[in-house]
């Protein structure tokens, strides 16, 4: 019985956090935001991704046979947690988690080739998953012959990627080149400037390959994405609390540190008391993904939805602990605020996730 991290996992966590503290401090995040404001279509920061590749982070979920490290989803969740903590601008969710899980579940020769390229970090693959759980603006992709038509909304990590993984319906999965004829990708800027989402308009886009009967691959991809996203939100919350506690020790009003006022203490205590159990739920969901797959969907729904609710409270409370400066661009706290505000709606909003959780248990309608 051991509900915790292994020595290797701790080492991974520490190494990555030290790396991010050193290489992606908050002014790097800010510079990246400013760069994207200037040149919105450039997308992903490839230099940072290449440095993460050196640490092996791009191949965490790639099997060893394809030169990855073949680790578990809990390891990937730790990476996501650290990236959320640093609000690091990376395509990890799509290219480091969702694409590798989809591809390794397919286990076709094409998919294996793709995995090899992903592991090196030289190739980046975006994912269009939104229509699997929420159709708006008449979006949806279809095949005519072997060409893709239609529209996908809020594709993840696609701006500046090399290829895009497109679920078509619930059981076919296509890979298309980002530069393919007939494909128009438009960046959809969100409040969170640390990651890119986009609209894909497809007018007869040729596929690089098409996998049929890919239903379980698509499901596993979405499941892994949800758990990793919950971990990212969790990491961002950890950072917001740490910043609040540090600020409260530093800032003086009425001749004493504001952290000695009970109202401020209680805000911080509530944040951490609500957050610590979320860590356990996210880790358990990640553990289930590999070890108890029957339980994983319910745990993923709850981890993402509940984590998002807790995160909204924390983002608001942490800002209030900072007072007026918390509301400025300069203070930087808003980078985390916006990260969790956007995470809240990627891969399923809390209310619809809870409907999903109820349906998984045959409750109600």
């Amino acid at each position, binding site marked *: *019985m*051991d*509900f*915790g*991290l*292994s020595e290797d996992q701790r080492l991974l966590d520490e190494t990555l956090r030290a790396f991010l503290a050193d290489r992606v401090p908050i002014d790097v995040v800010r510079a990246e935001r400013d760069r994207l404001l200037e040149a919105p279509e450039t997308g992903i920061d490839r230099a940072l991704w290449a440095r993460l590749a050196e640490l092996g982070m791009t191949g965490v979920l790639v099997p060893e046979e394809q030169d990855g490290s073949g680790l578990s989803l*809990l390891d990937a969740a730790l990476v996501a947690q650290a990236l959320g903590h640093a609000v690091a601008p990376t395509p990890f969710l799509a290219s480091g988690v969702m694409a590798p899980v989809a591809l390794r579940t397919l286990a076709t020769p094409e998919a294996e080739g793709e995995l090899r390229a992903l592991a090196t970090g030289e190739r980046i693959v975006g994912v269009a998953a939104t229509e699997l759980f929420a159709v708006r603006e008449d979006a949806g992709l279809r095949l005519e012959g072997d060409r893709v038509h239609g529209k996908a909304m809020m594709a993840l990590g696609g701006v500046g990627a090399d290829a895009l993984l497109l679920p078509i319906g619930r059981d076919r999965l296509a890979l298309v080149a980002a530069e393919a004829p007939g494909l128009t990708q438009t960046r959809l800027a969100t409040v969170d400037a640390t990651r890119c989402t986009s609209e894909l308009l497809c007018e007869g886009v040729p596929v690089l390959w098409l996998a049929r009967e890919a239903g379980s691959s698509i499901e596993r991809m979405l499941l892994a994405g949800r758990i990793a996203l919950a971990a990212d939100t969790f990491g961002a919350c950890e950072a917001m609390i740490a910043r609040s*506690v540090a600020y*409260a*020790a530093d800032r003086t009003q009425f001749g*004493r*540190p504001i*952290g*000695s006022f*009970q109202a*401020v*203490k*209680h805000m*911080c*205590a*509530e944040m*951490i*008391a*609500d957050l*610590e*159990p*979320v*860590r*356990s*739920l996210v*880790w*358990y969901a990640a*553990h289930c993904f590999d*070890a108890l797959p029957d339980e994983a969907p319910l*745990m993923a729904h*709850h*981890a993402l*939805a*509940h984590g998002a*609710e807790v995160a909204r409270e924390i983002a608001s409370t942490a800002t209030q602990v900072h007072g007026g400066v918390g509301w400025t661009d300069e203070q930087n706290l808003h980078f985390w605020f916006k990260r969790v505000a956007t995470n809240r709606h990627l891969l399923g909003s809390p*209310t619809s996730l*809870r*409907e999903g*959780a*109820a349906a998984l248990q045959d*409750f*109600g*309608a």
Partner: protein
Amino acid sequence: MDLEYGAEYDAFREEVRAFLEAHKPGNLAEASAEDRSAWLTKQIEHGYWARTIPTEYGGYGAEPNLLHTIIMDEEFNRAGTLRGTPSQGPSMLVPTLLEHGTEEQKRRWIGPTMRGEVIWCQGYSEPGAGSDLASLQTRAVADGDDFLISGQKIWTSTADKSQMMFALVRTEADAPKHAGISYLLVPVDSPGLEVRPLRTMAGDLGPSSFNQVFFDEVRVPRSNVVGRRGEGWKIANTTLKHERNSLSSNAEGTWMRLAKLMRDETMNGVPAIASPVYRDRLMQLQARMLSMKYHALRMLTCALKEEPPGVAGLVAKLENCQLSFDMAALALDVMGELGALYDHAKYERARGHWQAHSMFALGLIIGGGTAQIQKNIIAERGLGMPREPKPAKA
């Protein structure tokens, strides 16, 4: 992460199950005191209660093993029966005696307490000393080989059903606040001691017992002090630690009963679970329940590895008590106007069970350190935030 217990533990689990199948009594709430004691004694004989207490003090004498404890709790829960008894003697006094008691105190009290032959109450709170417990004023003055106790305790659960009280009293009149307190064992039938029951908000919705206790020169031998004179505050803190550990709730069982209620209870011909609004609240509570369940496993792992859990180790009481209250709140909402029925009214549901649950959950939010005090502890000890400055002396 490895959530398997391993073969030897699976065998242990089987043993516990077989024991429960063979010996589990019927409705304990209606059993006589003798029958209850007999059931506790049987549990001790098999090592499912008082498991790690040495045999010379009436226990089973096994090595401490957290996993055995968890497995026993899980199996007794599953069988729908209590393991041991949740009263304050076994959960608070006995661990304190084991740590600080004299040989004679241990031999005299631990066995009968674990067997339910001696019931204890906790005499800490006073009218003027609740959250600020160390300001307590009940005095014990040395008189030959005895102490004479005068003063008042309040909110004393089960005092009217107890033979003994473990109490905090001020023995050193001139010592500073925290240094003048001793931990004393007091027979409830002592001359000069009077118990006056208080009616609680739960009325007769549940087996509640809440009392005031008055002391008028109550004579207790000095040998009834646990630990050294004047060190009662330190010793009480070990007791409070045990109380917080024992306040873990069976949130999963409560949630399952809530989900069942929502399937059974219909309004306008439709079960409550079919209402998207109620269902959404049920799902929110399930997520919180699950996160506390796995949080407990994470804390258990820290204990097994002897790793300090940090701030994560301080949040369970706050979160669990609120969760328990919120689950009752949904149950009451689902039952609507019928949920308010009481006192054997026609259509009353489960003898007002969820109203009682709600009120008892609220009691636990306050008792054993209020939610606000928990937040002070989390912020100061867990997050290292600055302490409240002492008010300047006038």
